[in-house]
């Protein structure tokens, strides 16, 4: 499950298309570090483990899409 901080970040990204586009434009290699920096700027304590876990869950959900 996402941490409260990550869930709050997801809510903010969902509510702000410009913010979402900015994060989408990040190079995949720099994504985790940059999102952690953005989170800190917003006062949210999103950890690297939060993000890596969320990436893994997202990848799994996409692969499993045909049976969910």
């Amino acid at each position, binding site marked *: 499950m996402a941490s409260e901080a990550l*869930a709050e970040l997801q809510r903010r990204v969902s509510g702000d298309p410009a913010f979402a586009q900015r994060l989408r434009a990040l190079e995949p290699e720099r994504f985790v570090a940059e999102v952690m920096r953005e989170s800190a700027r917003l006062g949210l304590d999103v950890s690297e483990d939060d993000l890596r876990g969320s990436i893994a869950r997202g990848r799994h959900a996409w692969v499993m899409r045909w049976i969910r």
Partner: protein
Amino acid sequence: MGHALDTLEAATLAGWTPVHVRLGGAAPAVDWALIEGPFSEPFFEQTAQRAMQHPFNQVFGRTTPLSALEALRRSAQGLAPAGFIFHMSRCGSTLISQMLAQLPATIVLSEAQPLDALLSLRRRAPGLDEETLVSLLRDMISALGRPRAGEERLFVKFRAWHILELPLILRAFPGVPWAFVFREPRAVLRSQESNPGTEVIAGTIDPAYLDLDAALAYQLAPGVYSARVIAALCDAALRAAAFPCASFIDYDTLPEGALALATFFGIRPAAGDVERMRAVARNDAKEPGRLYAARASGEQASPQIERCAAEWLDERYAALKRAAAAR
């Protein structure tokens, strides 16, 4: 994609594209992603796959109920479709869609799963009334067809079985010109035999469409079943052959037939567009970058294919040729 359904504010979906509709839960749900660049892959599923490789969509991808689509259409209408492409499978329709994608300011939606999922709701949710399905189709095509980089024109290429829902689709989009692409049946059956598409796997299409008993569908030899499915697709197109919005494109006329189709869809391609369209036609439509290698036309059909074509498809093929010639 993991977080819960959003309380939707349609404005927040600006820039987001529906990439998948899930039907397995208590209620259908739409997965959304931010897609960078045009839908340039031969199939929308490949575009969605590309988008979903980016960690942003893995962490921040959104999921909404279907009702989000209607809210979005009210706040941000997508392009009205300029033309629909239907086909009997394995007949050059992907080439046509790739050629049309060369036109400037054009979106081509090629066999998008979200549309397939909605069209399959009639079978999966029998209580759903036709009016709701019509609205959902309009909402989904609007959501998928929102301009993302100044596009002005939208074409939709459907999956082969979707021609069976032509009346519903035309009810949602009356007056939109459409084409049915067809090919000599032995070539289609040979291709389906060596690499079967989902449409010819028994059980994927409601047997009622095929005038078949459900149990019998599973008992037929695969080649016979394929022939009966393709026959039903041809019949659905032929039933609408007299419609003024209908056009029939013979594989044998490609690539020039695709240029004629562009004209039928109301476009006069510029010289540079025609050059790009012809250049694309030299490649394998399903594997861009690889030169197209046509199979020898004189290749002998197996006795079973010969039998199936003669019994189920030759007359229909002749009728399709007549419909094409009448245009």
